[in-house]
């Protein structure tokens, strides 16, 4: 992404920096590895300069300058490590610590607390403040179903106030009273309602004043490992960081991507970590006449291959594959090749519920989009659409109801969960003699309708890519292997294909993406390593399949 602003040259601590005009000195210092401490500055909020932690000395200026509010100028000589600047920052930290409660053992922010980090950097371990003179404020203020406020811990950086005013528009948090009793809160400590982005204030609060009720006391953050990933609850594809331990995800935290979600994510996506791990299917399931029972992969895939082969021999158009806009690009690519090259059936489609027509439409004014599936754009780019004489999803469901489909292969449970006419879908599927589903969660009606359930991995447990509504290809990294015997569909389809006499490429997500990018012109020129943590735009606009 090129920056059209003219570059400015300056020196920070003797190191030469070139930054676009309009950048503040704090950001310019980051470019040369000088980490200026700051509380009130946040990259995606307005500049405030109230915390006074980022003070630096600039040659020729009589006083120290807050580097977060000062734009870079040509030829500036910035001295971050000058003794008076260091002393000023240390004193400012001491001021903030004077009334800060000794809450580290009970505070959730321990381990990711800016006050702790700067305290360790700056020293000052012998406090000159008698403990009984500290100002006390209300602790454990319940601000609704997401946030717990501790007024004593607040360092008055105003990040939450500015967020609620500038980003979410709710102005839910304000300053009250003055002087040493200044505190953050809501009017009359009322719970915060109606703000669907309030979870972000927990991330931006540098101390433990605003903490997440959902995450409260669950785990100490230094025990958690982090993996980068992408939220899969809508087509915006906010970049997230998955914090997990021992195969359990504890929270999603947004990852900054200036082009997609800045530093934010919506509460709906934030909550989704729980649903992704519940009611997991741990092994492939086989219907033995009465109910679904656990089985081995070999038994399940052998049965699927046998029944599919039998149906194809009788009538090639009696086998249908429904791909999924919730699966990765690699899985959908293999599904399209499985249907068209291995099974040679024209019935393959991804448009399960009409959401592909709403992919780019916004649900609210900030981030969330109307399309609840993360990869409609990827499926469109891959052309997972019916072949000549083939039926789309609506046609496939009609054919199922008419009894013309003998084997139905579903790459996800979306036809059962994402549609409004679930009753019609259930009736149609009941008439299909053999239904194979890749599912990672038990959903209603699945056990009544599926004859074979292939235990799938969710997006946190597999490596792959998704394309968001802007046409940006973003990587999913694998945090941990799927539970039990579950395997991602991209690993299962090649085994199924080989049983049917075909061949599909095998490998991890990175290898499959590179192969796919070479084979598909829509992804031409992209590589897994080239995508990087922030993703890349598709080289051409995503073809619209509305009405085709």
């Amino acid at each position, binding site marked *: 992404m090129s920056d059209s602003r003219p570059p400015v040259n300056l020196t920070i601590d003797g190191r030469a920096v070139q930054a676009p005009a309009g950048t503040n000195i704090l950001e310019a210092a980051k470019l040369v590895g000088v980490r200026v401490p700051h509380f009130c500055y946040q990259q995606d909020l307005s500049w405030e300069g109230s915390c006074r932690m980022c003070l630096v000395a600039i040659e020729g200026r009589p006083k120290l300058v807050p580097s977060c509010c000062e734009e870079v100028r040509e030829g500036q000589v910035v001295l971050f490590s000058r003794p008076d600047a260091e002393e000023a920052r240390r004193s400012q930290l001491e001021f903030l610590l004077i009334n800060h409660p000794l809450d*580290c*053992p*009970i505070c959730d922010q*321990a381990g990711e607390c800016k006050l702790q980090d700067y305290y360790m950097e700056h020293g000052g371990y012998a406090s000159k403040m008698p403990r009984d003179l500290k100002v006390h404020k209300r*602790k*454990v203020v319940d601000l609704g179903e997401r946030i717990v406020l501790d007024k004593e811990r607040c360092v008055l950086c105003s990040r939450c106030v500015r967020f609620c005013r500038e980003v979410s528009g709710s102005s839910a948090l304000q300053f009250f009273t003055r002087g040493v009793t200044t505190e953050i809160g809501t009017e009359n400590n009322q719970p915060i309602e109606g703000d669907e982005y309030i979870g972000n204030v927990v991330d931006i609060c540098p101390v433990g004043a605003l903490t997440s009720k959902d995450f*409260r*006391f*669950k785990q*100490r953050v*230094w*025990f958690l490992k982090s993996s980068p990933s992408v939220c899969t609850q809508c087509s915006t594809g906010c970049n997230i960081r998955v914090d997990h331990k021992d195969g359990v995800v504890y929270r999603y935290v947004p990852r900054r991507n200036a082009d997609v979600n800045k530093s934010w994510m919506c509460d709906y996506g934030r909550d989704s970590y729980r649903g992704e791990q519940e009611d997991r299917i741990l092994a492939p399931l086989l219907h033995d006449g009465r109910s679904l029972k656990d089985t081995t992969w070999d038994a399940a895939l052998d049965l699927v291959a046998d029944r599919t082969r039998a149906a194809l021999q009788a009538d090639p158009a009696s086998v249908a594959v429904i791909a999924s806009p919730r699966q990765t690009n690699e899985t959908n690519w293999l599904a399209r090749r499985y249907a068209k090259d291995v099974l040679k059936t024209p019935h393959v489609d991804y448009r399960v519920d009409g959401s592909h027509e709403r992919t780019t439409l916004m649900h609210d004014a900030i981030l969330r989009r109307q399309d609840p599936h993360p990869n409609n754009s990827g499926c469109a780019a891959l052309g997972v659409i019916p072949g000549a004489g083939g039926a789309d999803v609506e046609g496939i469901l009609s054919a199922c109801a008419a009894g013309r489909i003998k084997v139905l292969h579903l790459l996800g449970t979306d036809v059962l969960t994402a549609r409004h006419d679930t009753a019609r879908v259930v009736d149609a599927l009941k008439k299909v003699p053999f239904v194979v589903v890749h599912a990672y969660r038990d959903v209603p009606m699945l056990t009544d309708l599926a004859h074979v359930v292939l235990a799938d991995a969710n997006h946190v447990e597999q490596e792959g890519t998704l394309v968001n509504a802007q046409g940006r290809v973003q990587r999913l990294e694998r945090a941990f292997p799927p539970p039990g015997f579950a395997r991602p569909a991209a690993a299962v389809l090649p085994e199924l294909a080989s049983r049917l006499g075909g061949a599909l490429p095998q490998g991890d997500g990175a290898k499959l993406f590179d192969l796919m990018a070479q084979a598909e012109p829509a992804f031409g020129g992209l590589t897994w390593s080239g995508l990087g943590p922030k993703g890349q735009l598709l080289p051409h606009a995503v073809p619209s399949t509305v009405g085709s």
Partner: protein
Amino acid sequence: MSDTTSSVAYTPIPRPKSRIPLRPEALAPIAPPPPKAGTVPKGAPGSERPSFLLTAMGLVVTIKNFLRSASSRKNDPTIQYPEERRQYSPRFRGIHQLTKRQDGTLKCVACFMCSTACPAECITIEAGEHPNQKYEKYPVRFDIDMLRCVMCGLCVDACPEEAIIMTQDYEMSATTREQTVYPIALLADRAQLTSTPAGYRPRYEPGATLVR
């Protein structure tokens, strides 16, 4: 994977004959053949040969100590356990104890310092919300797996609340594996379970009262 209990004898891997001749040193065996059982190799020093006199000379210290211990009770270092017990130093590190505040609640606030500091990773804690806002956090679950514990006392050093100390208790025999994981019930009321005094406690000021 090859079957390790195979009855087929091991046959050396056939290697093609090389056209490069081996050096004469390579043809000689690397080590001399082991000596026959009950003999010493040729050229061994005289002290390696079995000798009753040398054996007796080696046992002199042992026999001296044995005779001293057997001479009288006073010289015998053995104590008659369990009737007699050893006295240990006041900083002896025995079984852990969770201490209490004056009002009877556990001092522990589930900060996980002990769990993090433990080199054996034997402390498992789950935190919960305390109904009293002044205390705010308390351990819902606090298990120490005594079979993993190495009694190092790093948990006591790490605790910021003086909530965990070690007693001078060391008797922890059990008949099942489940009995060796000590939950809060076994750790918190240790003063009632034993009569030994408190052991490893770093902040022992004279006159300080420790509610056990």
